[in-house]
C-alpha cells in the first residue's frame, strides 16, 4: 500500500518551473532572428510641373554632362559609348575638374548633368545610371566635407551641410524621354 502512494505522488508533480525559461528562450530566439523589412530607395525631388514650355537656356557645352540611355540599355556619355561601371568616375572628374581642363565643367556649381532615356529603357538600367550619378555627387560632397570640416558629410550639422551643398549642388536635369522601344 505504501509503495503505490509514493509512485502516485511522484508522477503527479512534474516541475513546471522551467517552462517559462523555455518560452523565453523561444521568444528571444525569434526576437533575434526576425528582421523587420525596411523600405529603402533613392530619394529624388521631381521638378514642379508647368504647362508652358520651359524656356531654353543657352548652356556652354563644357558645363553639360549629357547621359543618354537608349532602348537597348546602352549608354552614351558626352558622345562616347560608355558602360555603367565607369560612369561614376567620369562624372566625378567632370564635376570636380581637378586639372582645370577646358572641356570639363568650369566649377562644380556650374556643372549640369543631363539625363535622357527612351521609353523602352529598362527601369533597372535607369536606376543603376541614376544610382551612379547620385553616388558621384555623394562622394564629391563627402570629399568636400572632409576637406572643409574633417568629417563625413552625414555627420555634419545642417549649416555645414548647406555649405557643402552650395559648393557642390546636384543639378540633374531629366529630359522628356523619346518614344522609342515602348513595350506593347
Amino acid at each position, binding site marked *: 500500500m505504501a509503495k503505490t502512494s509514493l509512485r502516485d505522488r511522484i508522477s503527479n*508533480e512534474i516541475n513546471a518551473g522551467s517552462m517559462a525559461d523555455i518560452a523565453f528562450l523561444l521568444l528571444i530566439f525569434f526576437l533575434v532572428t526576425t528582421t523587420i523589412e525596411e523600405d529603402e530607395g533613392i530619394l529624388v525631388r*521631381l521638378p514642379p510641373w508647368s504647362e508652358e514650355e520651359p524656356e531654353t537656356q543657352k548652356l556652354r557645352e563644357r558645363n553639360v554632362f549629357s547621359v543618354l540611355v537608349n532602348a537597348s540599355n546602352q549608354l552614351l556619355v558626352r558622345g562616347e559609348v560608355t558602360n555603367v561601371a565607369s560612369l561614376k568616375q567620369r562624372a566625378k572628374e567632370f564635376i570636380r575638374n581637378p586639372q582645370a581642363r577646358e572641356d570639363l565643367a568650369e566649377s562644380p556649381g556650374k556643372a549640369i548633368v543631363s539625363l535622357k532615356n527612351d521609353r523602352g529603357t529598362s527601369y533597372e538600367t535607369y536606376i*543603376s545610371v*541614376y544610382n551612379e550619378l547620385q553616388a558621384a555627387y555623394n562622394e564629391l560632397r563627402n570629399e568636400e566635407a572632409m576637406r572643409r570640416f574633417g568629417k563625413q558629410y552625414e555627420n555634419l550639422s545642417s549649416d555645414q551641410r548647406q555649405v557643402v551643398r552650395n559648393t557642390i549642388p546636384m543639378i540633374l536635369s531629366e529630359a522628356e524621354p523619346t518614344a522609342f522601344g515602348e513595350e506593347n
Partner: protein
Amino acid sequence: MSKFNKKRGKSSPAISTASLPDIIFMLLFFFMVVTVLRDTELKVQVNTPFATELTKLEKKSLVNFLYIGKPNPEFQDLYGSKPRLQLGDKFSSVADIPLFLEKHKVKVPEAQRDAITSSLKVDGKVTMGIVQDVKTELRKSGQQKVNYSAKRKESF
C-alpha cells in the same frame, strides 16, 4: 471491486496548470511569427532593382506606395501581361493617381503634408514608358518627393 475503488481514490486528481500560460504564449508566438505585416496585397510582380545610394523611408504614415509591374499570373487573363500600375489594392490607370494622393493626404496632419513621399516600387524589368507617365502625373499633382524603392547592394 473494493480494491479497484480504493486505488482510484488515492491518486490526487489535480493536474498542474502551471504550464498553461506557456502554452498560450507559444500559440501567441506562433501567430506573431506567421503573421505578415502588409496592408496591401500585391497584384503585380515587383522585384525592385539593386542600388547603393539609398535613403530610408522614415515615417510610414507619410508614405504612399505605387506599384508597377506585370500582373500576377492569375490576373493575366483579365489584365494581360503588360506592366500595370497598382494603387492601394487594385489595378489603376495613371489618371487615378491624383485621387489616390488626395485620399492619402487628408489622413495626414496639415503640418506634415510637405513631407509626404511617394514610394515607387517598380519591377526592374519594366520599361521607362509607364514609369515616365507616372512621374509626369505625380508632378502634375504636385507630389515632388519621390523615392525609387531599391534593394541594398553591398558595394566593395
